[in-house]
């Protein structure tokens, strides 16, 4: 017993050093997997407040750019208004038999929710955005986030008034994407080297890809609606050892200046994820 105390006294600093170091590693490994610790969400509320102050100041510098993007989006939306489309007047009378198609059978699957970005990193290996919208405003974990130009990321953590979004520029981020041209899907990741480019893996060599092709979200994703803009193909590399292309994608979203985003809620998200993660019972 005495020897143990002597040992602890002798190596007290080394032991406390090792203890703190192990604590750091445990914190880090927990954080990158689950993002669920109470400690983290309490700290988020504080850093979120500081980020908000700072962002209030910063937003003045990018007002012009934000205005331009909002105006662009407004014009795009106005072009979609039903009043823009006039009926073709050719004297014929169309009758639509409403009984064939059940017009009451539609339901709203995706709901959009605007949010202001109050924190954003793009220089690290694991980048997050902070949004000023939380559980109180209806944000849930797993909701997709898109900007005016293209998709941005997925919500991983929420507090009452803030939420944290895992950016596409995160080494654990994974989104199912496809080519707009022929619907060949692949898995969208980030290699951590350049915030302007993402990597699209596992695109079959049967796909006819060329530079500049548009990449959109696929139908296979639980949180993203299909056919949302992601980016354009910048370089194509064929892996000789496998049957797949690896594509470099120039992101449509400019992650350096993202100001406002939309949160997308899928009404059937929980149901779909539950079935996806449920282990298959062997027959």
């Amino acid at each position, binding site marked *: 017993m005495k020897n143990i105390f002597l040992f602890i006294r002798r190596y*007290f*600093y*080394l032991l*406390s*050093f090792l203890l*703190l*170091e192990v*604590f*750091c*590693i*445990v*914190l*880090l*490994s*927990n*954080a*990158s997997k689950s993002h669920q*610790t109470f*400690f*983290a969400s309490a*700290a*988020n509320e*504080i*850093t979120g407040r*500081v*980020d908000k102050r*700072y962002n209030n100041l910063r937003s003045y510098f990018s007002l012009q750019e934000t205005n331009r993007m909002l105006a662009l989006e407004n014009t795009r939306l106005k072009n979609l208004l039903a009043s823009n489309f006039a009926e073709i007047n050719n004297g014929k009378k169309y009758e639509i038999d409403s009984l064939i198609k059940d017009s009451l059978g539609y339901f709203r699957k995706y709901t959009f929710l605007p949010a202001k970005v109050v924190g954003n*990193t*793009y*220089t*690290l*290996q*694991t980048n*997050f955005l902070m949004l000023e919208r939380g559980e109180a405003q209806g944000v849930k974990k797993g909701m997709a986030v898109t900007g005016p130009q293209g998709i941005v990321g997925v919500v991983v953590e929420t507090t009452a008034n803030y939420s*944290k979004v895992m950016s596409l520029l995160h*080494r654990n981020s994974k989104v199912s994407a496809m080519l707009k041209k022929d619907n060949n899907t692949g898995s969208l990741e980030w290699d*951590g*080297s*350049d*915030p302007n480019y993402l990597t699209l893996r596992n695109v079959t060599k049967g796909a006819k890809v060329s530079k500049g092709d548009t990449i959109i979200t696929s139908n296979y994703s639980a949180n993203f609606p299909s056919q949302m803009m992601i980016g354009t193909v910048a370089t194509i590399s064929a892996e000789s050892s496998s049957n797949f292309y690896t594509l470099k994608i120039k992101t449509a979203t400019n992650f*350096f200046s993202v100001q406002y985003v939309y949160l997308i809620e899928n009404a059937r998200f929980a149901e779909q994820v539950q079935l996806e993660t449920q282990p298959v019972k062997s027959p």
Partner: protein
Amino acid sequence: MSNLLKNIIRFFIFILFQVFILNEVPPLHQFIVPYLYFLFILWLPFSINRLALLLISFAFGLSLDYFTGTPGLHAAPCVIIAYLRPFLLNLLIPQETIEQTYLEPGPKSMGWAPYGLYIGIFTFIHHFFLVLIEWLQFGNFGYFIGKVLGTTAISLFMIFLAEMLFTRIGKYRANKT
């Protein structure tokens, strides 16, 4: 100004400067993030208790981590340099003369050559472990070495600038009592 107050103010300034200015700098090349915050630990007084040094560095690293959303990532290298600091200081400076007369490490109290060595070694250790911890998750080796050396060079340059801009008065311990 009291030494404690001065260090508390430094704590906040280094954190805010790192988070809101240096982390916002667009990447220079292949993800060289300019790091300066750990200079806070290197500037702590000679006479600080070793356990206190470890705990302060841990808290310092962790508070930066909560801004970047990666708890533990910066705290780990901070604790390593805090643990190694007393050993290297003992090697680099003659015991009786300086440690008793000067308050904290600096080019005035240690001389440019030993101070440069002290800063250089710890900057390298800090970046080595910082990138290593990231690298344990993903990455490749050439990228690893390149990133450590590039980031070290940028950091050393900025520390040199900081020393030139804010000449700390090499305060004598005797004056303070």
